[in-house]
């Protein structure tokens, strides 16, 4: 989401970066590192990995069409999956709970503390990014870069370093997501990496434009999934449920897009 807005490309591999960081965190924790330190290292690893891939993208594909760039991120995702199997194996890991598993019951609906923290964090992040894009000079430059990379470069905007920085930031955020979400999900690498799917679903719902809407959409999909668990006929489909939702919404939003952008 962040990447699409900022670097003009949606990233298929971003959740894989996140899963990578999260698994490093878990591995370190299992080896007896203090939890906080493990998280810090994990987030840094996700950040570094993402930054490295951003650098590859900036170096090799400075002015390529978005479709090719997307295909490149698919390639990255596949490679990283393979690397991750190598390092972490296919064994599910138990993630240490970040927060005590306390639930509050508000008018019949039980809310988990971790869920609420995730919600809060997501909202704060979205708001911060929104402020950054709207209110700062760099934000405006980044927005310019995402629409017209070459023009932005000609205006003296350091496109490359911005790209890398944005990828790094996205990688760090993506690492935090699975660390927060892992306790509620099965935590083998594939499922974490494929967290990309609901994440993309949320981003698509927000149509890559409104960050606030994206957060709402992400939460909505999460809630929907949780509700579907209770409804047997639908529960087996619950992982694919977001798709049907986004598909409908997406088609509705794009209903006017009869032609491609090439004029």
């Amino acid at each position: 989401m962040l990447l699409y807005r900022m670097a003009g490309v949606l990233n298929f591999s971003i959740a894989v970066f996140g899963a990578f960081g999260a698994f490093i965190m878990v591995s370190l924790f299992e080896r007896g590192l203090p939890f906080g330190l493990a998280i810090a290292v994990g987030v840094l690893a996700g950040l570094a990995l993402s930054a490295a891939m951003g650098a590859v993208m900036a170096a090799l594909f400075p002015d390529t069409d978005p479709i090719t760039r997307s295909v490149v991120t698919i390639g990255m995702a596949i490679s990283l999956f393979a690397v991750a199997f190598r390092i972490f194996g296919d064994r599910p890991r138990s993630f240490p709970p970040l927060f005590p598993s306390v639930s509050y019951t508000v008018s019949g609906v039980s809310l988990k503390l971790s869920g609420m923290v995730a919600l809060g964090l997501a909202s704060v992040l979205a708001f911060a990014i929104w402020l950054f894009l709207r209110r700062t000079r760099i934000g405006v430059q980044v927005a310019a870069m995402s629409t017209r990379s070459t023009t932005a470069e000609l205006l003296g905007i350091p496109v490359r370093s911005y790209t890398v920085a944005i990828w790094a930031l996205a990688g760090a955020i993506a690492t935090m997501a699975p660390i927060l979400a892992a306790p509620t999900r099965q935590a083998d690498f594939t499922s974490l990496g494929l967290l990309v799917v609901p994440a993309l679903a949320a981003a698509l719902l927000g149509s890559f434009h409104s960050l606030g809407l994206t957060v709402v959409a992400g939460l909505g999909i999460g809630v929907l999934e949780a509700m579907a668990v209770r409804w047997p006929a639908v529960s087996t489909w619950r992982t694919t449920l977001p798709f049907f939702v986004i598909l409908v919404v997406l088609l509705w939003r794009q209903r006017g897009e009869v032609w491609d952008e090439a004029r």
Partner: protein
Amino acid sequence: MKPVELASSLFSSTRDRAFPLSLVAVLTLFVLWLPDFWTFLFISALTTGLIALSVGIVYGRARMVSLCQFSFAAVGAWVVGWLNVNYNLPFVVMILVGGLAAVPLGALIGLLSLRLRGINLAVATLGFAAATIVYLRQTPFPGSFNGQFVERPAAFSSENRFFLLCAVVFAAVVSLVGYLDRRRVGRAWLAVRYSERATAAVGMSVARVKLAAFSLGAFVAAVGGGLLVGQNGIVSLRSFEPFDSLLIFAVAALTGARYVDGAIGAGLLGAILPELFRRWGIPLDVAPMLFGVGAIYVLSQGAEGAHGQLREQWRARRASRGLPTEGTGPARVPEPAGSESGPAFPPSGRGGRGTANRAGQPVLAIGGLTVRYGAVVALDRVDIDILPGTVHGLIGPNGAGKSTLIDTVTGFVEPAAGRVLLEGSAIDRLPVHKRARAGVRRTFQQGRAIPDLTVGQYLQLAGGRPEEFEDLLVFMDCPPVDRRISEIDMARRRPVEVAASLLGRPRVVLLDEPGAGLAEDESAALARRIADIPERFGCAVLLVEHDMTMVVGACDGITVLDFGETIASGPVDKVLEDPRVVEAYLGVPIEGVSS
């Protein structure tokens, strides 16, 4: 150039095919000689190759990212298994039915591509892949409980025989795809990836073109899936995971599965490489890693994959050896424009410029046309009548609404008010490609000749027959039919686009700055040719142009727009003297003129 040569250059694949065909022959013999274990792997290579080929159709040709090709394969496999349990059909028939069963599904997914593009489509298709695997997990593969496996037909029971069967099926599918490639729809696949508008403007329905690509892709993938069942007797669901679709996509992008050899290469990589790794003691998961990295590397070199790049080098080498390159003109020196060479085309079958038109009925009647973009009025009650046999100029400063007018007449922009009549019948309700077929053709200001096609293929896409091409290209002073449009400079592509717009017997062509970027003498020559169009092709012309020498040289009448309003209309010399026109162009009021 004789028609035969022309046709062979147009369908130049005989030469292009010789290499992959001989490769296939050698490979086949080699595989038959191998022990059964390896033959089995090569069977996998062929089935995987088919699925890669399907990626080559949807992504390689039409540039639509589809991450669910293995789901289509699963459909084929499932149907074959189901038929095997319930009916007693020959194996080949079952495969065919399995392939056809995936077609509606492919078309359904293709429907999404009409509004979703790029990454959106990629995500939607990946979602479909995820949904398919969920469904398959709940519904066991037919026959898997009671051990009713799919039997290979008796004649093809050995590995060698079954390999031959697969090779024949593969060849049949490749011929089918190759046949469609040489048809208009195949040319249109390469056109939609470049510009959907340009595809519709030559009279092709973008929806049909995309659905055809997805349907064919689904068919090919499902045939691959069917063969997979025959190979193994039963298939595990693990073969159709979304990750496999992702992987085959990356491999297909890596090798360039748009080409047959690329698809075979993808099959070999996908099926043989892991086994080699196993033997060499390299961990198997290194393979996807390599595929990912390889795809990235290849893409950084160009979008067509490894085989695409090899072909480019091959082309370049062939071009440097004697074959004409950039800048050589047409096959023949053009006759001076205006000479009596007679019309290249008989006027349209509907009586052409005869009958109804004699009464002075305009070919194209634009009445009260109004277009608003939000609060901006782009066109304000514009009336233009284009009379048969004339070239009508449309001029005005930048932003006057000239291109908007063409967009509206051809159906790209919905007008707020007004009507468009083609020879007296309203075309307002028709979609773009139907307007084009009814006889309203256009060119684009930006130049929208399809770079991936040769001149001849582009003219074929525009609806022409090969025997028409030579005269037309000579008339428009265009490069020869076998020149790739990507090798022609931008300014010289426009005349090719104009030539294409004259095919398919249009009643009126709307030319949007065809002379942009041409040198002065060239644009004067182009002006003379445009002036000749009504005479030779029996169609009227609306010419949008900035170049005044061209307007004066080509036009009979002229309309001037400024800020969406008609400020003058009439014969060329009268209009150009009109003070308001001068003011609009120079931006200052001329003395003595009251506004």
